[in-house]
Each structure stands twice: as structure tokens, then as C-alpha cells.
């Protein structure tokens, strides 16, 4: 058996979001449960039909247990793998294996965070994290977690390939232009390259506008086997490929700061799906920082290594450009509650359903979702398609 045997064997049949932006007095579990309820209803299923669960938390060590308990599930499959923001893309493959083998029949993937409005002090979390998960060879130098690590990657890309701050700013501007077409996006005011360049520098060369939002939000999606998907109310988004690659955790251990493990996860996902970059209609890339989008465009084969800055400066990834990227407005302008992977998956499904209103990409049949976690550490690529692509 090879991964390609699972191509199209499973589909995403329901999606839901809740509490995006500011959760207004609700807990992260409450908005997670609300998003899950919406996703299960969207799938035409009931919660008692969910017998598989994939979830992750950046603060709770036994989060899967808490979610099982809160939702009242009796799962036959649980995956609480936590590899950062890419987790909810990486959760696809184990779920596919569990569904294909008959271990379970319907998997709920879900996440929620109230990092924006929760009363717990973020400085206290930072101190606790340093105690619980020390990094003795980095912590003494006080890199901002995780921003300075991405800044070091951006600085190296600029040095090696002549990438400019203006080109990075074009990534943020394109994301904002998409967000302006999305009524659900958190930041929808106009944004120019000059605005980004003039915004507050945090860790050179990255400004606050090169950085993702700090919002609340929860998202969930439901996966079933393809044969069952056909009988459910929504047009299925079939999982044609999914692969995850991890090469390091700390930025000081990343072999080459201009090449991410997306080069490997992308290659394996394309191979499983039997498609290549030229076939993709819409991309949802995890843009924790503007440099991410550039690195992933290169590593996933949409332009040669070192060329992504020049590729984006002409508006190629903005609405009306040649390559629709981050059509919800991205982590930069739509939503970013600590970990963002579930939201790029949801946006890809919505694009394949043709349900995106003003921001809908015409003829979107093949979507690439790419999740990132840690400090460019974990990379997970998924390729989703409509029934025409099977």
C-alpha cells in the first residue's frame, strides 16, 4: 500500500467557525464546541455519529481528553498530535488511515483559542512555558517567541536573494486586499506598502504589520469516507494528498533558513495527489509572518528559490492577480488565534464549494493548503479537490 492508494478516499464534508475575532466572554472550549456543532450540522450529521477526534492545544497537555468529555464523545480514534499551527493540516493523514481501515466512520478535527480576550496574562504564560519547556541554548538570548526566529529567516532571505522589505510588505497588502472582500475578516481597513513600512518595527526586518493577528477563534471540520460523502448534503472536498515534514524545532537548528521542510511535504503531497503546482487553482498558506508566504511559494514550486519577493511585488497573489493566495485574508488580516491550520483548511473547502461570495476564485477545483508550526519547524501540505478532480 502507498499513500497514493488513499487519494480521494476521504472527504471533508462539514466546516464551522465560532468566536473569530473576539469571543466576548466565552471560553476556548465553548467556542471550540460551537464551531464543532456547526461543522457537524454542516455535514448533515449529529454529534453522536462522530466517532473520531483530532485536536490540539498549545497550553493543555491532555486536551484531547477534555474535548472528548466536553462534547460527550465516545471516540474509537483520537489524535492529539501537537506540532504547532500545522497540526490541523497534519491531522488529515492519520484520520484518513483510521477512516479507510474502518477504525472509525466520522472524524471531527477542531481547535479553539481565546488568546486575545482571555484574562490570563500572556507574560505569565511566557514565563510558565520557559519553565515547562526550556530551550537552554536559545532562551538566554531572549529571542521574541516566535517572531525573532522568523525575522532571522527573513534577514537571511534578504541577504541571500536581494528580497526587500517592500516585497515583504506586498504580502501583507495582498492579504489585506483579500480580507476587504471577506466580511468575516478581522482587519479590513485599507493598507498600503507605505503603511507597512512605517509600522512599528518589532524584530528587524519584521514590523507589526508583517506579523499575524492576535485574535480569538475556533474552527472545525468533519471527514468521512468518500462513499458516504456522496450521500451528505454538502459538495465534498476530497483529500487528494497530505504529507508532513519536520526537520528541526529551534531556529538555531534549522539547516538553511531559506529552505523549509515544505519542500519535502509539498513534494510528497503532490506525489500522492498526482498533481503539480501548475494544476493548483487556489492556495491557502500559513502566513504567520510575511516571510512565510514567500518561503512557501518557493518551496511548494510556484516560483524558483529566491524569486518570491519579485513574484509578489507585481500583485500576483492579490485579488485579480495570476495566483490567488490566502483568499480569506490570511493570518495577517483575517484570523489568527495562536494556531491557524484549521482555518486555512476551512477556507480551502469553502473555495471548492464555490461559497466565498465576493472573494470566490472562479473555477476553483484544486486547492493547496499549507500549514506551518513552531519556528518554520513543522510543515504539512494538503491538496483538496472537487469531485471533478477525482
Amino acid at each position: 500500500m502507498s499513500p497514493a492508494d488513499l487519494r480521494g478516499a476521504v472527504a471533508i464534508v462539514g466546516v464551522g467557525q465560532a468566536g473569530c475575532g473576539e469571543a466576548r466572554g466565552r471560553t476556548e472550549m465553548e467556542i471550540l464546541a460551537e464551531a464543532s456543532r456547526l461543522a457537524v450540522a454542516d455535514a448533515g450529521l449529529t454529534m453522536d455519529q462522530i466517532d473520531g477526534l483530532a485536536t490540539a492545544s498549545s497550553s493543555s497537555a491532555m486536551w484531547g481528553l477534555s474535548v472528548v468529555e466536553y462534547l460527550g464523545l465516545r471516540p474509537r480514534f483520537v489524535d492529539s498530535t501537537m506540532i504547532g499551527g500545522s497540526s490541523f493540516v497534519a491531522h488529515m493523514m492519520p484520520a484518513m488511515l483510521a477512516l479507510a481501515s474502518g477504525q472509525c466512520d466520522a472524524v471531527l478535527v477542531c481547535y479553539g483559542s481565546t488568546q486575545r480576550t482571555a484574562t490570563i496574562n500572556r507574560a505569565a504564560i511566557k514565563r510558565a512555558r520557559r519553565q515547562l519547556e526550556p530551550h537552554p541554548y536559545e532562551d538566554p538570548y531572549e529571542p521574541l517567541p516566535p517572531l525573532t526566529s522568523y525575522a532571522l529567516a527573513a534577514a537571511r532571505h534578504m541577504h541571500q536573494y536581494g528580497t526587500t522589505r517592500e516585497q515583504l510588505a506586498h504580502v501583507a497588502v495582498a492579504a489585506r486586499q483579500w480580507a476587504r472582500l471577506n466580511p468575516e475578516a478581522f482587519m479590513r481597513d485599507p493598507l498600503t506598502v507605505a503603511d507597512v513600512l512605517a509600522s512599528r518595527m518589532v524584530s528587524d526586518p519584521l514590523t507589526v504589520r508583517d506579523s499575524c493577528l492576535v485574535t480569538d477563534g475556533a474552527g472545525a471540520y468533519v471527514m468521512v469516507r468518500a462513499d458516504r460523502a456522496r450521500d451528505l448534503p454538502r459538495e465534498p472536498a476530497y483529500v487528494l494528498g497530505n504529507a508532513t515534514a519536520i526537520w528541526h524545532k529551534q531556529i538555531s537548528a534549522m539547516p538553511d533558513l531559506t529552505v523549509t521542510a515544505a519542500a519535502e511535504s509539498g513534494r510528497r503531497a503532490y506525489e500522492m495527489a498526482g498533481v503539480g503546482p501548475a494544476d493548483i487553482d487556489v492556495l491557502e498558506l500559513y502566513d504567520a509572518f510575511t516571510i512565510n508566504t514567500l518561503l512557501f511559494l518557493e518551496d511548494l514550486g510556484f516560483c524558483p528559490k529566491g524569486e518570491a519577493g519579485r513574484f509578489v511585488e507585481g500583485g500576483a497573489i492579490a485579488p485579480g492577480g495570476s495566483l490567488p493566495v490566502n483568499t480569506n485574508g490570511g493570518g495577517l488580516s483575517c484570523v489568527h488565534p495562536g494556531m491557524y491550520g484549521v482555518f486555512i483548511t476551512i477556507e480551502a473547502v469553502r473555495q471548492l464549494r464555490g461559497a466565498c461570495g465576493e472573494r470566490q476564485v472562479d473555477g476553483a477545483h484544486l486547492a493547496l493548503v499549507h500549514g506551518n508550526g513552531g519556528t518554520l519547524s513543522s510543515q504539512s501540505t494538503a491538496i483538496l479537490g472537487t469531485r471533478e478532480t477525482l
Partner: protein
Amino acid sequence: MATMNAEQSAPGAQRAYFTHLAEGRFLIQRCGACDRHVFYPRVLCVHCGSPRLDWVAPAGTGTVYSTSIVRRKAEDGGDYNVALVDLDEGVRMMSRIEGVALDRIAIGMRVRARIAAGDEGPVVVFDPARGDER
């Protein structure tokens, strides 16, 4: 009754590294099996998996691989540098470049290691190598 051999009774690699620093010695590891250097200190070689790691003194010279200025309010201590330095032995480490204005720290700059006092113990920092002060 079991007796511990020398290897089992020795402190772990992490404690040994910081003990060396406290004694004024910056030591890294070299693998006795594949001859490559290893950083940060481990109990097995990250290249070949061998446990035969020896402590060696690096030349202490290296090159700035990447660098950032972290912006911080003056009342909290002001801006500071975070850098990645490639030692001439072929390993990379996070550090801080001192002894030069923040805006003069550049990728490619040659630097030399020095042990400095940190808030929680000794740390390795780097100064511009002789001939590379600007």
C-alpha cells in the same frame, strides 16, 4: 550490587556544557565515529547516532549567519541583538553580538566567542573578530 561505570556517573551533556562555561571554558562536541562537530551538546551524534562524543575547544571564531535587532523600550533595557553564528567547526548557535553598534552588525561579519555573565549563568557571546570592527 551494581556499580556505576565512569560514563554512567558523569554529568549529562547539558550540565557539562554549562559547568565548562562556569569554569571559563567554551567547549563543543566532536563525534569520535564520524569526526563531525555537534552543537548543542547531546548524548548521541546528530549526524551518525554514535554515543562517542568528545569535548573539544573550538577555535572560537565564526561568521554571522543571520541577525536581528529586537526592539525594546528604553526603560526595559533598550534594543538588543539576536544572531545566529556559524562556528568555523561547522556548527551553528544562537548568540548575541556585542562590542559594536547594533546597526553595524551584518550577515557575513567575522566574530570571536567570549564567555559573558548572563542573568541565569554564563553565556557565549561574540565580538567582532580583529580586523572586522567597523
